[in-house]
């Protein structure tokens, strides 16, 4: 019995060691990113970070605009005279463009302050929400919205819109929170 307990304890210790080594590798990756020429370029030149952040925020505004116009239309709150399917499909093109700009500028912004971001809880909240948002849009929301909206239940459209708004709000809010924590 005691031997079994010792073995379990050993397995748990081994598992914890592996987890810690994986985390250390991730920290090494972030440290290397900050020390890289990209990180140095963003950090050492005064206006670089501010310029990249300005573009990042403009892309965030564009992405927020596409999300709001699509989701508020699905909730039947705005642009009631335009078919919701047409709005969803048109806005999605701009959504993809804004998302591309956000990901590229976001990578450069992280490169400048990578180790700070690594230790920031809200950075990981943002990344998780971002990943969930991207998967939700491309795997759930858009395949659903490409169908004829007349055949879908209004409650489903409203629920999808609410989930989408809340996910992207969390991405934006936790992004701002990184700067204040």
């Amino acid at each position, binding site marked *: 019995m005691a031997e079994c307990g010792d073995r379990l304890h050993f397995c748990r210790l081994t598992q914890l060691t592996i987890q810690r080594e994986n985390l250390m590798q991730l920290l090494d990756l972030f440290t290397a990113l900050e020390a890289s020429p990209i990180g140095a370029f963003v950090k050492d030149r005064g206006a670089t970070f501010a310029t990249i952040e300005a573009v990042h925020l403009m892309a965030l505004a564009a992405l927020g605009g596409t999300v709001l116009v699509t989701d508020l239309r699905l909730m039947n709150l705005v642009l009631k005279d335009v078919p919701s399917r047409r709005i969803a499909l048109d806005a999605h093109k701009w959504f993809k463009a804004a998302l591309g700009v956000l990901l590229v500028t976001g990578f450069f912004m992280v490169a400048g302050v990578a180790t700070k971001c690594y230790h920031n809880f809200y950075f990981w909240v943002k990344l998780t929400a971002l990943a969930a948002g991207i998967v*939700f849009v491309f795997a*759930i929301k858009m395949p659903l919205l490409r169908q004829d909206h007349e055949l879908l*239940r209004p409650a489903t459209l409203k629920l999808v819109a609410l989930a989408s708004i809340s996910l992207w709000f969390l991405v934006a809010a936790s992004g701002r929170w990184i700067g204040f924590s």
Partner: protein
Amino acid sequence: MSNLMSATRTTAKFSPRTFEIVAATISAGIVLFMICYWIVQIVGVAHMLRLAYG
């Protein structure tokens, strides 16, 4: 037309009705999670403010 074909391709594994139910369930899960998350955040901030200012 291509969008309609794309939608048909994506939802080919499920019938449109099943896909709608899956989408509604996942969306409801996300909304519930968000409600819990923001309640925890607001309670946490309120607790910190109470600690800081009595």
